[in-house]
């Protein structure tokens, strides 16, 4: 026992000495995010480090962690020391607030625009020349069309896809809960492969040549077109889609323990500045800043967008009704269907 105690005491003394030194020296933040933001935050972190230095702060390094949004949220709940989380859905951050109490419940009110510094939407990626002539959501339920989308039970992005289709059907003339359910059921009958994540679905569509149309985040679709060839794929923007709001927040318990609150808050606020917005737009996230949005207007086609709060009553309600066990999505794939 004795040597262990001595070591523990020495370690504690060392930490006590090292902590203030560390604070004056380099600050390190961990940004826990989801898959398609990897490139965005690589650029952004460099820009922020320069900005922070310019304001008289010390050097900042931001470490990135990417993966499925839900998996990332679970990692934070289980103890991954994230200073900030920038996830695909408010639902995942709600769970961090609810399950681990690391964040206050009202976190989404703390930053402008539902704490979403950039937005996106769901678009269609089709093969060059649009051989199946897919123009709008209606075409996706045609018997001759195969649709690729990931599984909403395992992928945050897929939940946006699903809700976008549902909202479209709801907003048609004579649209009701019943017609929406029927529409979505018919759409998922046309899905030959349910990948577990958004990148997997993109691979299935792009590399494996499965399906006629891929439902994807707008930024993911742009990435696929730019990386894999404009001669092979094109983006089709439907008449109506959902306003996808990937939210960000500081993880209060972690930043307070590590003493990084000031930097972490500045890190997220900088996303809302013209410089931050510019970086988001460059990575095909729709900026919320009016001026930057105007500048990038040619890139982002105008779409009628509805929000999850107005159409579905927020993420908690949508999750419970559609994606929880025994929910609408499960019944689409129920036995005997």
């Amino acid at each position, binding site marked *: 026992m004795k040597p262990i105690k001595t070591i523990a005491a020495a370690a504690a003394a060392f930490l006590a000495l090292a902590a203030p030194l560390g604070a004056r020296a380099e600050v390190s933040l961990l940004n826990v995010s989801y898959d398609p933001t990897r490139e965005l935050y690589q650029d952004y972190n460099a820009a922020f480090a320069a900005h922070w230095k310019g304001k008289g702060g010390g050097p900042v390094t931001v470490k990135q962690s990417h993966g*499925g949004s*839900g*998996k990332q949220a*679970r990692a934070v*709940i289980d103890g991954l020391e994230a200073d900030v989380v920038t996830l695909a859905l408010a639902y995942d951050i709600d*769970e961090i607030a609810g*399950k681990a109490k690391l964040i206050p419940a009202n976190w989404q009110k703390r930053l402008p625009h539902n704490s979403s510094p950039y937005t996106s939407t769901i678009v269609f990626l089709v093969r060059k020349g649009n051989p199946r002539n897919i123009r709008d959501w209606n075409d996706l339920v045609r018997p001759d069309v195969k649709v690729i989308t990931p*599984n909403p*039970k*395992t992928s945050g992005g897929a939940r946006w896809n699903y809700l976008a289709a549902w909202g479209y059907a709801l907003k048609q003339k004579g649209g009701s809960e019943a017609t929406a359910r029927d529409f979505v059921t018919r759409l998922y009958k046309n899905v*030959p*492969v*349910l*990948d*577990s994540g958004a990148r*997997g679905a993109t*691979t*299935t569509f792009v*590399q*494996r*040549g*499965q399906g006629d149309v891929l439902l994807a985040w707008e930024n993911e679709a742009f990435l696929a077109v730019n990386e894999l060839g404009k001669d092979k794929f094109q983006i089709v923007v439907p008449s109506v889609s959902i306003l996808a709001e990937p939210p960000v927040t500081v993880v209060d318990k972690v930043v307070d323990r590590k003493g990084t609150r000031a930097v972490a808050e500045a890190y997220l606020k900088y996303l809302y500045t013209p410089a931050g917005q510019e970086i988001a737009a460059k990575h095909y996230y729709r900026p919320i800043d009016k001026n930057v949005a105007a500048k990038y207007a040619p890139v982002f086609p105008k779409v009628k967008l509805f929000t999850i709060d107005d159409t579905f009553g927020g993420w908690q309600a949508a*999750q419970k009704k559609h*994606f*929880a*066990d025994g929910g609408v999505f*499960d019944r689409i*794939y*129920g*036995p005997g269907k």
Partner: protein
Amino acid sequence: MATRPITRTTVIPGFGPALGYTVFYLSLVVLLPLSALAVKTASLTWGEFLATVAAPRVLASYRVTFGAALAAAGVNAVFGLLVAWVLVRYRVPGKRLIDALVDLPFALPTAVAGITLSSVYAANGWIGRFLEPRGIEVAFTPLGIFVAMTFIGLPFVVRTVQPVLEELEEEIEEAAACLGATRWQTFRRVLFPELFPAALTGFALAFARGVGEYGSIIFIAGNMPMVSEITPLLIITKLEQYDYAGATAIATVMLLFSFLMLLAVNLLQKWSRRHAA
């Protein structure tokens, strides 16, 4: 046997610390995580537990997972034996290389295996493009799951059978031949009883690996509910909904299945050894 005291003097000293260490190590590495599984599951009532593990989708996934794993392990038992035979008994050029290749499914990250397999077997892949016109769809069907499980299970059979084959002396076969046995009789009566326990162990290991496999299957399975959804995917699905108890409930059922399977194989081995002797 039973009267022999546990602490007898052996050539190598240190029985006490060795046993203590073994028990401690096993507890830390195996039993502790498993008991955590049980503790998490225990937060469910019996009714909830049953409703979770016997839901139609979960039942369908057991059929897919255990069915495909059983079939894959069966195929591996036969062809793994064949591979081991060739590697031990014949001199072929590049034998060392082939021997090393057997271990590849062990060493390869499973996700890499999955991505590779699905690109090979997809309709536009190297093998898929020949199968597809003949109406055989492999990628994104239950057949794809079977292919992936066969791939990752192969080394288990080869590596358990190989050392036993190497131990078998050719003189035994010669003796059998001298006594007038045909090749088939020699195999059936002399070789097979010796190899059977090892092949069975390999079969069990390949089966267990197939049941637990996730990474290599997820890309090739298609993951359609009720059709090609494996049980580990349903565990992930539960976790995505932050349903930890539901996930561990299904995991517990899988653990139970695997345990029973290992037990059955052990009993079978004991039985076959007694009959061989």
